[in-house]
Every structure is written in C-alpha cells, then in structure tokens.
C-alpha cells in the first residue's frame, strides 16, 4: 500500500531524499533484527546440512568431510539387512498403530464439546471445562508420575483392590507388554481431551442460534438438533484438525514414549521418533538415524501437502 502511494513523491528532490531516508531506515531495522535472523539461520537452516550425514559413513570423532561417502547405503539398509528390516517394520507398525488409535479417537473432543454444551448449568459446565484442561498443562513426566502413583505395584489402585480383598498380589499394570498401544492412547486422551474440546466449544458458540430456533419450531427435539445442526456446524473444524493429524502420522512425538518406555513394553512402544533417538543419540548410529529421520521428514512433508490438497478438493479451502 505504501509503495502505491509513494512513487509520485520521487519526482521532486525532496521526495527523493525522503525515499532514501526510508530505505536507510529499512536497512537499519534489518540490522537491528539481525540477531534473531542469525538465530533462525543457526537453529533451523544450518541443521538441514546435517542430512548429509546420512550419505556418509560417519564415525564419532571424525568430521563430516573426512567421512567416507556411501551414497544411499543407509537408506537401503532396512531393505537389505534382515535384522534391520524386521526392526524397521516393527517400529513402523508401532508408529502407524499409535497414529491409528489417535485418528480413531479424533472425534472424541467433538462429542465431548457437544455434550458439554448441552449442560445448561453454567457453573458446572465452566468448572468441568477448567478442570479437564489441567492435565494438558503438565508435562509427560508428571503424567508418568500420576500413572505411577495410581497404577504401580505400590499405587492407589493396587492398594485399593487389596484393601477390598479383590486381589491378593498386586497387578503390574505398567511393566507389561499387554495393551501398550491402547493404554498409551488412553494417557494421551486423558491429557488432551478437555483441551482439544475447547476449540469445538467456541465453534459451537459461533453457530447461528436462529438455526436452533427454526428447528424447534419445526418440531425437532434436542437430539435431532444436535445431529442435524451442531454436528454439521463442527465438521469444518474437525476436518482441518484431521488433516493436520494426517500430516503428523509419522510424528507421534517422543516425550510420552520416552518416559513410559521400559524393558517390558519396549518392542511395542518404540515409535519412529523414539527409534531415531535410540539409534542416533543413545546408540551413536548417527548416519543410520539421520537417514531414518530424513525419511520421516520427507514423508511427513509429502503427507502435509497431500492433506492440504485434499482439503482444497473437499472444502475448496487450503488449511495453510
């Protein structure tokens, strides 16, 4: 806009001076912001060169350039080596199942919000909303501590069951390979459900009240109104969030699985993000871990574009 207004001023000598002044000012501003731009360069762009490590045979202590170039060896490894292939397939299975549970559970916040908004007792509704969002603001370590205090051998549940005489020996809920995926999904839902529903709550507040009134006059009961007005009114929001989830199918995050990982559940809990950490940072397989991480990043970016295009095709609107 400013550019459109400025040009006529250029014709006079004074206008020229003004133009130069603004240009200089713009450069001064740029110089002032340089520290932040350098930070962005160092922390976001420079690491991209680290992808080169996946093409060399990197050994700790050597530099990138003194390492031997091996081309796509590390990318081919999950296909050529039986042990690595099984391991990679196991990790992929864990990742996809974990994401699958997440996608299956994705309508829950929507229904949580619809049912909560059906409650007319405002104080109660607000309290539920505030209290159920608390778990979202504690870290996964705290969630682990919470689960530990409830479900460990010395936890609340075992002591309670023993007090009631229902079990003689404590049940080890945590160090088990049974039901790992569903319990991890449960912890995630416990932590995130209330928070995720807030977005739907405000979307519900944005639905035109006249629609409900018109429906009432036509004789619709509350369930019909919920199903035919509220649900369609939230589908747009749901779709956007679903697309973002699809972009994150390979990125389950790592904190949750890192804190809950133990010798018993390791084989089922190790998702791609955790695998990259275990290989690269703990195991010092820098090159292989970088290759796997790079594979993940590229596929994720592809999924993101896929989801965006899907959104364009279905809703006529991109999500980014």
């Amino acid at each position, binding site marked *: 806009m400013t550019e459109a207004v400025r040009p006529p001023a250029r014709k006079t000598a004074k206008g020229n001076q003004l133009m130069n002044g603004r240009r200089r000012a713009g450069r001064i501003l*740029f110089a002032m912001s340089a520290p932040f731009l350098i930070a962005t360069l160092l922390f976001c762009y420079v690491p991209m060169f680290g992808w080169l490590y996946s093409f060399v045979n990197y050994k700790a202590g050597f530099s990138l350039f003194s390492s031997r170039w091996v081309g796509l060896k590390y990318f081919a490894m999950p296909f050529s080596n039986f042990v690595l292939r099984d391991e990679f397939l196991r990790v992929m299975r864990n990742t996809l199942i974990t994401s699958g549970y997440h996608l299956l559970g994705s309508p829950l916040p929507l229904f949580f919000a619809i049912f909560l908004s059906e409650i007319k007792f405002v104080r109660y509704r607000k309290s539920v909303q505030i209290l159920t969002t608390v*778990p979202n603001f504690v870290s996964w370590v*705290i969630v682990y501590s919470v689960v530990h205090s409830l479900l460990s051998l010395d936890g609340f549940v075992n002591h309670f069951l023993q007090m009631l005489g229902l079990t003689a020996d404590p049940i080890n809920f945590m160090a088990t390979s049974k039901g790992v995926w569903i319990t991890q999904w449960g912890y995630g839902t416990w932590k995130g459900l209330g928070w995720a529903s807030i977005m739907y709550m405000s979307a519900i507040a944005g639905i035109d009240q006249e629609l409900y*009134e018109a429906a009432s006059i036509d004789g619709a009961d509350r369930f019909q109104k919920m199903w035919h007005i509220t649900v369609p009114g939230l589908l747009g*929001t749901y779709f956007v969030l679903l697309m973002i989830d699809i972009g994150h199918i390979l990125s389950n995050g790592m904190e949750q699985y890192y804190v809950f990982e133990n010798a018993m559940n390791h084989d089922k809990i190790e998702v791609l993000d955790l695998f990259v950490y275990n290989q690269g940072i703990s195991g010092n397989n820098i090159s292989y871990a970088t290759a796997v991480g790079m594979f993940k990043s590229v596929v994720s970016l592809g999924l993101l574009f896929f989801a965006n295009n899907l959104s364009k095709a279905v809703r006529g609107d991109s999500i980014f």
Partner: protein
Amino acid sequence: MALKEKKTVKDILFEIAIYSFFTLFTLLCIFPFYYIFISSISSNALVDRGAIFFYPRSIHLSNYVSVFKIKTLPQAAFISVARTVIGTGLSIIAASFMGYCMSKPEYWHRKLVYRFIIATMYFNAGVVPLYLTYRMLGLIDNFLVYVLPCLNQSFNMVLCKTYMESIPGSLEESAEIDGAGYFMRYMRIILPLSMPILATIAIFAAVGQWNAFMDTVLYMTSTKYFTLQYTLNLYLKKATALADILKTDSAAAQNMNLDTMLTAESTRYTITMVTIIPVLMIYPFFQRYFIKGIMIGAVKG
C-alpha cells in the same frame, strides 16, 4: 433454546448420562493430583503401607523441607526457574521485535525475510542433525541450549505482526515526528499497546519452558543443568536406588522418625507436587489467556 420444551424420559436419561460422564471424567482428571498431594502430606509410614486413599492422615509438611535437603534438588529448581524466566523473556523479545519489524513496509527485503522465518514452521531437520548442530555450536552441556532456541519464534511472530498491524499508525507517526527512533517507538508505544497478545505468548512460553523435558535428555550430561522435570524422571525411574541414597544421606542427620523420614515414595510424591504446584497455581488466574491462545491458534492454524 427460546422455547421451553417438556422433558421426555429420553431427555432425563440423557441428562443423567452426560452429568455422570462429565463428573466422572473431571474426577479422573483431578483425583490423581489430589491423591499425590494428600500422599505428600500424610505420615510417610502410612503411605508406605498403602493406607492412604481419599483423605490425608497424620498431616505433616516436613517432606517439603526434606526434599530440598537432597543435594541436587535446589539446583534443579533454580535451573527450572532460571530457564523459565530467561526463556520466556527471550521468547517475548524475539516474537514482539520480529513482529514489529515485519509490520514495517520499509523493512529491507521484508517479504523475503518473512518467508525465511515462516518456512521454518513447515520443516525441521530432525533430532540427530539438530543435536550435531548444537554440538558444533558448543551448546551441549551448556545452559544456553535451553534458552537460545527461544530466539526463533515464527508462529508467535505472526501473532505479534498481525496484532501490531491493527495498532493505528498515527500513534507511531507522532512519535516519529518528535524524533523517536525505531527502538524507542517499539519500546514506548508498540510494546505497551501489545500487552494482551504478549501476555498470551508469555504464558504459553512459560509453561513450555517449565515443562520442557526432552532438551535435558538430549543435550545435557552434567547434573549441574538438570531441571526439576528431569530430576523427577530420574527419581521415578530409580526409586529403589534413591531410597538407599536417602537413608544414608539425609535421614541419618535427622531424627529417625518413621512418620516424617523420607521414603522413596514420599520423595516421589513431594517432588511431583513441587514440580506441578507452579503450574496449578498460575492456571486458574491465566485460564482465559490459555483459552485465548488456542483460539488465536485456531484462526491462524
């Protein structure tokens, strides 16, 4: 809603169902924290026997004094507070100043720089390359690794930019005529007017910093820089080893009262409380900022 309808049986059943569901789920969200709290203030001997269920017994607060006698804990608390304060400060400075710059059309190659920053939201190099970069920069085992990445604020920068563009330009112009430079105008006019958005960003940054855990796992090896979150995780994972340390370390110095002597369990409960109390304390007061935060996110995301 305008019309009062007669309640049918179906309606009443539905009401019962949703009220019971929400009451149960809310209890499920709150009870664990309550249980940890009552366990941390009850007699340690009773906690050890598993005799605490719904209310505290033989209340004492000595656990909260004792845990801070464990050598590593005051240091961890200090690191957690320091990174929260510094990290939040840097986040706000970076987001608001870059947002200010990007709201200025005369900024040198503004579009290019804007894209340069925005692009970072859509890709990341991954854990291992980032680790190698930090190592190259000498940030491994360095407190700065907690706070320096805060200088890079793409999403919050956009929020600030949008907000600042809505501030009337005439306010700045009059200051410009009075001879105030960019920095002066940013400090004296733009920042005070942007308080609502900065408060939202600050609260999220602070909770993020306080809860941050993986960066300690990834980049720290010396105990000097362990945070509360990380220390808690160590204690959760090594409960028995910890109990031994406690017996030799702190208990010997104290009187050997079983009710107040730290056990592995009471330590866990107490450190958990120490770690969540700050979040639980600020949450009710800043709740509306949190909600505002997710709404801005929804509009932009």
